[in-house]
């Protein structure tokens, strides 16, 4: 074997290590740079951009239209719905070449409802992680199901349960510890079957949550939601203070508040 010169060998080492370090740095920058934020406000500052929507489908369309991407989504509702995504994909047993292929993220948009909208938001890269704030009984139910899955952790803060590598956390309002970045927040009226708006507002404020989009969903069509829950949703809106519609941008907090 012909020996390579030591200086050349060292050069190769330095070059590969440098390229690797650059790649690590570049991938991190690339990932973070793909997040799209709007004008950010805080619950304590009462300047979170807020909108009201009829239901989950409108919420999804609102995020999509605004162009949010790569975000953490805080989902607040009375229940965490589950379904089998493959049931929504077309029958694949009639395939002949050339294959009739599809992009799942686009195809499933035809099936948006209160059950599927978060999954479709994740497929379309609107969110890269979900924090579900649900009643304790719901956390317990999901935890029981999680015991059958492979990637879960139960901590005092709640439950971590991934699906095919997609991170999801389940917790309650009192245990919510906030997030290190501004989140998209969805509040369904049904949550107020079990909680008071003042409590939720206090919990989100205490956690220091920041957001560039707070969607208050009347969850029209959900039979558990009555005028009582809608009234509580309005009270919650008053507590938060309407700060106007969200404006997406590349970085958090770059836009000024719209009064």
């Amino acid at each position, binding site marked *: 074997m012909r020996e390579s010169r030591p200086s050349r060998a060292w050069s190769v080492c330095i070059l590969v290590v440098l390229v690797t370090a650059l790649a690590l740095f570049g991938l991190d920058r690339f990932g973070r740079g793909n997040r799209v934020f709007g004008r950010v406000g805080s619950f304590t500052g009462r300047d979170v951009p807020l909108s009201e929507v009829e239901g989950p489908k409108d919420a999804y369309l609102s995020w999509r239209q605004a162009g949010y991407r790569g975000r953490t989504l805080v989902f607040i509702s009375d229940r965490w719905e589950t379904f089998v995504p493959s049931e929504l994909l077309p029958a694949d047993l009639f395939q*002949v070449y050339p294959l009739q292929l599809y992009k799942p993220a686009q195809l499933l948009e035809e099936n948006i409802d209160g059950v599927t909208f978060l999954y479709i938001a994740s497929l379309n*890269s609107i969110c890269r992680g979900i924090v579900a704030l649900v009643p304790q009984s719901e956390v317990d139910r999901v935890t029981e199901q999680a015991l059958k899955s492979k990637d879960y952790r139960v901590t005092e803060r709640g439950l971590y349960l991934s699906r095919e590598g997609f991170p999801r956390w389940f917790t309650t309002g009192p245990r919510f510890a906030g997030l290190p970045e501004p989140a998209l927040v969805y509040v369904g009226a049904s949550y107020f079957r079990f909680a008071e708006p003042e409590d939720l507002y206090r919990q989100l404020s205490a956690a220091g949550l920041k957001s560039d989009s707070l969607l208050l969903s009347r969850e029209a069509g959900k039979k558990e939601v009555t005028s009582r829950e809608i009234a509580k949703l309005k009270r919650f809106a008053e507590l938060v203070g309407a700060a106007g519609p969200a404006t997406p941008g590349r970085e958090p907090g770059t836009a000024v508040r719209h009064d």
Partner: protein
Amino acid sequence: MTNELSQRKAYALLALITLFALFLDCFQLASQPVSQDDFYVAVSSINYMESGQLGPTMWNHPGLRNILVYGALRLFGSGVIGVKGVTLVLGLFCTPLMGLVAQRIFKSWRVGLIAALLWACDALVIDFSRQGINDIYLAFFPLAAIYLAYRFRESGRIGWLVGAGLFFGMGLASKWSGLFPLVVTLALLLADLRREPGPGRAARFCQTLVLMLVLPALVYLLTFLPWFSRGYSLAEWPALQRSMYLETSQHVGYHPKFWDDRDNRAYKWFVVPSVFVDPFMNLGGALEPGRSEPDFEKAAIVELGVANPLVWLLVLPAMFLVLRRAARERDEGARYLAGLFFLSYLPLVASPRPIWLNTALSVLPYAIMAVAYLVWTQSQRLRRGRVLLAAYLSLVLLVAAPLYLLAVGKGTGIPVLKEYLAEKYLKQFKGAPNAGSPPTPQAPGTR
């Protein structure tokens, strides 16, 4: 009889065997019905490259397959070349690589050529060279990397080692079991350095470590670029790897199987005849004009990757022979091959989860090289060895012929076998009101 073949003649024979492999891998490929795996491999590649999302199929494996298949789909469309072109090419190139690597390990072209021939006609190899899924990658990338590592050892040219690192990285980015041959090859290269004292050894030691560890890790990491495009940071990447690891280490299948699925233990592969079962329905060619109900018999396809018993059952005796040579003669090639085989195979044997026969493709190159060595050395010891060797190889080909039909899904075209296979593997579809929808597992917490 022991005189070695000339290089030119050996290359010509290897080219012939490769042409034979090309024929076996391509014969009537376009008319082979589309399987669910093929279909979802294509959909998963779109999902990964356009949405950065792993899945819907085999989400727990790294994403190189998605990248390559997506590239092929963009280049060639969604026809058979777009969907299966990558595996077809990689599967095909395994054949000459088998010859080239075995020749270097045993310093014998005859062993190399026998290994290439046994590989080319193996039903499991053919089965997975004709499918979109990536098990054949685990044979190709390590073989290519090992070949390049040998070229580096022969010439000292750094470019070969860079190539080896890149190919090992691609092996890792296909499935994590690509790590095993990397570790053994690294040990081989470091052992070289140990024998070569002199100034600059530390530099060459570091160079080897960097090119065989850091470079493959870099390739692996870069294949996650589409995932990062979803907004993830580097700090979030280990959580994904953890999820993938937990799924892979506890994997029991993506769908429940409706047949006797106990043949999934790696220790059996080389002890009893083994088979990889891949039954599916494709109603595309079964709906005739004027008929509303598909013809079940036409739609039922069962592809069987049956291990050729004349080869597979010789693996353990062959490894014994290789080990004996490694111990008695301190033969470097035998030691290296034993390391490749046992480090690739024993973790699968020890695994508590089911390991189906498709995974054997990550071990099979080394197993077949050992068998080639066994039959060649034993034929040399016998008086009429050349005749016996020819008889053995003819017998292997004879057995391989019906196994080939089973591997390419033509078994269901044989009258008696058709009924047996459909009854054994596809009876859950028969008479079902909605034959187009396979039973779906109710996975909780899907969102």
